[in-house]
């Protein structure tokens, strides 16, 4: 069983340990999760699905909480929708 999975963040491949959340992939990729209404970069704050700061688009579905979703191979994560 592989110990890593590879997904893409804004088109660029990112390898993360098996079981890591998408928030981890975002940290490794060095990307903010989203841009606030006033234009500020945002990322995980609570890390437990409450604050909604870490939302990203996963496989075309917007507003997914990256801290609550495990990475899967070939998952496409975007922050620029």
């Amino acid at each position, binding site marked *: 069983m592989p110990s890593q999975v590879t997904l893409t963040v804004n088109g660029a491949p990112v390898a993360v340990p098996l079981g890591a959340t998408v928030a981890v992939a975002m940290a490794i990729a060095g990307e903010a999760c989203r841009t606030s209404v006033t234009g500020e970069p945002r990322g995980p704050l609570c890390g437990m699905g409450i604050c909604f700061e870490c939302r990203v688009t996963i496989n075309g579905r*917007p507003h997914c909480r990256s801290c609550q979703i495990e990475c899967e191979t070939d998952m496409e994560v975007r922050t620029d929708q």
Partner: protein
Amino acid sequence: MSKAAYDVVVVGAGIVGAACADELVRRGLRTAVVDREVVGGGATAAGMGHIVVMDDSEAQFALTQYSQKLWQELRPELPDDVEYEQCGTIWVAADEDEMAEVWRKRDYYEKRGVPTEVLDTTSLQSLEPNLRGGMAGGLLVLEDGVLYPPCAARYLMDRAQGRGARLHVGSCVARIGEGRIQLSDGQEVSAEIIVNAAGACAADLTPGLEIKKRKGHLVITDRYPGFLRHQLVELGYLKSAHSVSADSVAFNVQPRRTGQILIGSSRQYGAEHKEADNGILVRMLQRAQEYMPGLTPLSVVRVWTGFRAATPDKLPYIGPWPADKSLFLATGHEGLGITTSLGTARILADQITGTRPEIAVEPYLPSRIAKEHAHA
């Protein structure tokens, strides 16, 4: 006018009260507004902000069309945060019976100068791809729009204050009448004329006034730009909104400039608590999902309720209260107060200043209550 502290005191700083104050002070009257909370904090903040022409009755049509015209005239002056968008309304016909209503409505609007387009199944689907397939069609009413009501009320009140009106918030009004406004902290203010614009609470201050609280729920989603382009209302809405007693829900969704989607609507009498009522909320969302299955995976960020000021004949009370020559009413707008606030303000001010109104005021006069009773 004479030695009272004010020519007019308006009770209620919702969008109707704010519009009335703005219009009265523009006509040179010394005007004050009293509200127990904040400007635009009641039904104004709870409503969708749909600027819509409606044809339930000739009188309702006249007031909504007149008011929509006034909004369009005001539009260039509205600040950006009012978020006025002329997105149009589509009345969605699910089947051929409702399509017959589309044609009736189109004829009615065409005769009265309201631009519309009849949509068939295909054109409806291309305008709103997230609607369920196979709808019979719809009627696009091109000049309807949406705005953000609390900021619209704030703008009108700011303008009134800029023209010299006084605003007093944070005081409950205990009693009004005979040219006196008593606040619950014991203060008293005198006015030649008092305008009761207290919305669903208006009957607490004017006993004998027939206004019931009609509770509504709204839901707002996260931002999904492009998901929805027009305000969509099911034609079955008319059946729902017309029913005088039973609880009802209808498909009614609105695109906000932010990409958020407002989802309504519900109507309940006798539910006086402010908390969301899960039973009717579930029914409302199921109805919305039936029409727009694509809503299901969207993320909801907030649910709230509000109280419409409902009158027995679905028309507001605008004009003098027969039992007290110092008292005028501007209330009872039910679900149309955002649209009709501007028209209400004009025809109320016309009556107070003895000016000839641009539309006939008779259908809205509070004196019709006494007449109904006399005939009963």
